[in-house]
């Protein structure tokens, strides 16, 4: 299914990143978190840049259903 999007593990020390991600939202209201997430998406999307990868990301999340 995946063409260019890498879905194999890439992040070194995932626990550390995950904790920092959650920390980022510490004490924020829902609206503030929402705004922060948008900034996060925009920055990451720009870093990826490649439109094929970006469109694939959109497709993956649009169609994603957890497997039973």
């Amino acid at each position, binding site marked *: 299914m995946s063409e260019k999007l890498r879905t194999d593990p890439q992040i070194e020390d995932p626990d550390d990143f995950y904790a920092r991600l959650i920390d980022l939202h510490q004490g924020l209201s829902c609206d503030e978190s*929402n*705004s922060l997430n*948008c*900034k996060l998406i*925009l920055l990451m999307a*720009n870093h990826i840049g490649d439109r094929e990868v970006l469109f694939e990301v959109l497709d993956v999340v649009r169609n994603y259903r957890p497997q039973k």
Partner: protein
Amino acid sequence: MPGVRQIYPFARPPELDSDDRVHLPVIIVGAGPIGLAMGLELDHQGIRSIILDDDNKASTGSKAMLWSKRSLEVLDRLDCSQRLLDKGVTWNLGKIFFGDSKEPVYGFKVLEEEDQQFPGFINLQQYYVEQFLKDEIDARELTEVRWENEVTAVDQTADGATVTVSTPQGNYQLDCDYVIAADGSHSPIRKMLGFDFEGETFQDHFLIADIKMKADFPTERWFWFDPPFNRGQSALLHKQPDDVWRLDFQLGWDIDRAEELKPDNVSRRVRAMMGEDFEFEFEWVSIYTFQCRQMDRFVHQRVIFIGDAAHLVSPFGARGANSGLQDVDNLGWKLALILDGKAPPSLLESYDYERVTAAKENILSSTRATDFITPKSEISRVFRDAVLALARDFEFARRFVNSGRLSVACILDESSLNTRDQDSFDSKLVPGSPSVDAPVTINGEESWFLKSIGNEFTAVYFARNGEKAPDGATDLEEDAIPVRTIVVTEDNKAGAGILIDHKGLLRQRLDGQPGTYYLFRPDQHLVARWREFDCQAVRDAVARATMQPRRIVQEGEPV
């Protein structure tokens, strides 16, 4: 309180006193900027036309007020750009504001490449453009404008159309080969003939206040997202000539129109935006909603639609009148070739294809701007505000900010009129692009490249040192559809009639290595190019660009 408004008197048409039926090549309905430009374009192509308008004056209020570089180039080809430039306000800088900050988030320049004749945009009230076009028409021979001549019926025949005209002194009929409907967004012709105008109406209101004031604001386009003086909405400030400024306030959907238009309420808005301590008077106030719509087809046998009659966009991006002028640019030469019997009527299919494609592009662009300016959902607003927040510091985020992508010429790269490149070129231009401009010298005078091409098929040949036009190029000038070849060199001592590319910018922009030959359509769009001149290849390209019946090309006849 309207601004300058030229009144044009009704003149009794001779048809009311004669039984002779007049047959014209073209009748244009609507004397707005697009109808008038169409008449002028046909005049330059040697085609007679009458422009019929149900009104007797230039437009009320500033209306279309941004004229793009491409529009100025089209009007320059019609010898009508200088007065626009002289009167218009030139601006190249736009600034984006967001929220409470008095500092802009960022500023952007409109014109990407220096060393071109025209700026990215000028601002000028529509009524001035109409007046200048009308004056130019009057200075020429082939076009007549008839005011208070309302078209009440159009009857198509196999080889033409009959137009019924109602005037204050009686009715009459005219016969013609083609009717061009330039009768605006409410196009009575479109309604009479029962054609669809599909699209969407946006649930939003905007208040335009053109005010006259002495202010030392810079000549820039300022756009506000969610400013303190118009919470949750947008606003726009633009300078026009005669110390007139256009203020545009987004109002939202649920408003009391009559209440909003009361002078006191408009004044309150103006003062909240511009400050309490200044004098101004109103020039024009109007509330508008907008729509994005277009016809499926612009050509319906003998009736051809141009401008707002054919396609309607939101004002963001100035893609209304500017795209209408590109319709004119595209249609004029094709219609002239058909009327002269040099191209088949099916050439109009290419107008339909090229301009329907352009209209789709413009509607997509203006719809996206609208969605950014007025987010349709809560999350869309959060993203929009995140973009604006990031734009202060990050260049990448500025690219997402959309207060209207300002009109640029449409690239007709999918058009079947183009001949595909066989050679490679390191240039931004592709077949279908309008030409770029560059400073040149000819006969000792400084000029511009775009002044040398257009109105007919024109080619440029990048000569090797001391070389003249290639063998066979002069023969092309004698063809039924002639091709005029211009020789380009960087040699300052070149002789009369040779285009001197003294800064080398034309070579650079077209990748004009010695021997390169570029062929442009009469509307200055690139249609074919080669690294070596080949007479037959040029003839084939002209045949393709004018949709000649295949047999002519196969027999290798001059077309």
